[in-house]
């Protein structure tokens, strides 16, 4: 009997604890676990739990801090990941494993650093998150605008002025996320790798000033809740045809536009971002990035190898990546998956354009995101406290930067 107990003990390892940020993804991962069991390891056991996009970071943090029942694997969004960087980072450094699995060649270069900090890589990104401009192809045609000519923001704004003056509509919807997005388009970011906030002050002032100016001239408009992710935005400004374009990531169009503007099927087009004219005379890249989920391993986990094997499987399995796109509308960061026809074919909803192909074309230009312990705070602060004041001209760009800087540099853990 003792031998039986010992055997039982060795065969059955503790199930892997996986925490996911949303319910839809929970379903995806549960099917991944099944697939993994079938394809790789029949004895594999895992428990997948989801906690809600907003609740998850807090629960994770408390669990890690107190050491009580933390998960082995966790899925986090890059914006929220930063908050865990103050002090001892509770995630495993995956650099060596990534190299061994040749993922450093197979994952889109710029995305590899998404979860990196001070030379270590703590997570694997799942999505490319390339930004594009979604435009109303039907209205563009009616107003005589050729999207191919909108190669720079200057040309874009010029076209926008005609739209405002002659037709009373706005050219682009403005959202607080554009601040970081446009900084990254211009080879800058909210932080640099040394931890300085707003490293390129001129660029930051130019971007903020640009946002303010567009609002003033009505070339840009701000949705009522100051967010392009507000479902009510689609049912008011978009529905009434008051605005012609929105800057968003792949899932924005694939998920939200498809769900909330079904009667505009076939009327949406996609194009790269217009370029900025940089101070040294060059033109900037024509895409950017924001957010994106990734998988991380808890440093305190006792099943590092099992966790990594599973993650590796999820990232590299081509069928899973295709499924993620088809069901969840997230374009993968794993390059070999881009050859899948299903991702590349013409998309009916988007004016029969080859959306996936455009994303593949833009992929090499997707900029890096600089992680920082205060990144989440910065994004949130700008979005909630300063964006509206800026956009309505109550605060000048320099003032916003200074105030934010003071707040960000004030007492924070480990800074």
């Amino acid at each position, binding site marked *: 009997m003792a031998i039986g107990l010992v055997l039982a003990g060795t065969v059955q390892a503790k199930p892997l604890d996986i925490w996911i940020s*949303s*319910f*839809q993804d*929970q379903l995806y991962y549960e099917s991944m676990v099944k697939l993994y069991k079938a394809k790789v390891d029949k004895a594999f056991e895992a428990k997948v*739990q*989801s*906690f*809600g*996009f*907003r*609740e998850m970071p*807090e*629960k994770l943090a*408390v669990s890690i*801090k*107190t050491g*009580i*029942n933390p998960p082995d694997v966790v899925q986090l969004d890059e914006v929220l990941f930063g908050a865990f960087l103050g002090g001892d980072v509770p995630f495993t450094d995956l650099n060596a494993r990534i190299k061994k699995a040749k993922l450093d060649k197979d994952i889109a270069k710029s995305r590899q650093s998404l979860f990196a900090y001070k030379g270590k890589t703590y997570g694997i990104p799942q999505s490319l998150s390339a930004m594009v401009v979604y435009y109303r192809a039907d209205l563009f045609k009616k107003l005589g605008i050729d999207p191919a000519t909108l190669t720079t923001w200057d040309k874009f704004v010029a076209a926008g002025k005609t739209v405002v003056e002659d037709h009373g509509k706005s050219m682009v919807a403005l959202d607080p996320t554009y601040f970081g997005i446009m900084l990254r388009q211009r080879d800058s970011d909210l932080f640099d790798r040394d931890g300085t906030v707003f490293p390129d002050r001129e660029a930051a002032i130019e971007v903020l000033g640009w946002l303010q100016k567009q609002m003033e001239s009505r070339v840009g408009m701000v949705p009522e809740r100051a967010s392009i*992710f507000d*479902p*009510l935005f*689609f*049912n*008011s400004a978009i529905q009434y045809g008051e605005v012609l374009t929105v800057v968003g990531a792949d*899932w*924005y169009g694939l*998920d*939200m536009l498809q*769900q*909330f503007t*079904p009667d505009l099927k076939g009327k949406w087009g996609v194009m790269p971002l217009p370029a900025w004219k940089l101070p040294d005379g060059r033109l900037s890249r024509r895409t950017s990035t924001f957010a994106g989920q990734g998988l991380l391993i808890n440093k305190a986990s006792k099943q590092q190898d099992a966790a990594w094997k599973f993650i590796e499987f999820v990232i590299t399995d081509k069928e899973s990546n295709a499924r993620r796109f088809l069901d969840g*509308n997230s374009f993968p960061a794993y390059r070999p998956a881009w050859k899948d026809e299903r991702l590349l074919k013409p998309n009916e909803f988007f004016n029969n354009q080859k959306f996936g192909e455009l994303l593949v074309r833009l992929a090499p230009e997707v900029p890096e995101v600089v992680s920082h312990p205060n990144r989440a705070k910065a994004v949130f602060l700008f979005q909630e406290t300063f964006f509206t004041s800026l956009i309505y001209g109550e605060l000048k760009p320099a003032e916003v930067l200074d105030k934010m800087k003071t707040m960000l540099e004030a007492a924070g853990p480990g800074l």
Partner: protein
Amino acid sequence: MSGQGKTQRGALSLLLLCPFLLAVLVPFLWMVLGIFKTNNEFFQPLGKAFFPVNYEWQNVNELLDGKWVPFWDVFGNSLVVSFGQALGAVTLSAMAGYAFARFTFSGKRLLFVLAVALILVPRQLFAVPLFSWVNEIGLSDSLFGVMLPGVVTGLGVIYFTQVFRQVPEEYLQAARICGATELRVFLTVLPLVWPALLSYGMIHFILTWHEQLVPMLVLTTETKQTLPLALAKLYDVSQRTPQGVQMAASTFAVIPTAVLFALCYRKFRSSLSDMLVH
């Protein structure tokens, strides 16, 4: 008062109540109708799409089948947790209120203030330490870990202190003269304040039903979660989950309170006033 006068007053009051009733009933109706709407319909401006186009019961069926959350498990958990807390809170607060109301002892005011002051502080203060302490005593991921901290309520102490102040002293003296122990005296007084016990029980039930912070930290296993917690994870930035499911779950959540209310309503009227009129 004449019958006619009473009817007039009744009608007038009803009329004056109308705006308030509308303000509370229309949102409730909206919530119920939301069960049948698609997400797109749901977020249309209220004037345009108040009524759903089709009355599909899909959301309800899916919810009850457990497709989104293990509905019956979490609903049951919420019931147990709220009911348990209500029971516990009433017991503890009633006893404490009785002590504060009918006895004099040194340090009374200080103790009272301590008991009540703690609830005036943001809950977040207790979150992390409570979580690790609950775990240390072995109540992590257990419904008791949520229930037991919740039976302490300063509001209850205030409430019952007031309630027991209003009991006539003669009543207590009568019981004492008959040689009853203090405990017995207390037990004889209880039926007098029965409506207050029920009222507070119901209030505590309502207040704890929606609680999120402590349950979120203490409960991890899906089938052990409470209803609001389980529903919270359906929230998605890209709005993929149907709002109708949330609406259905919330409508069901109103039922236990409605039942409690219906059962106890008549008893809410104080027997105290009746007794004194005799």
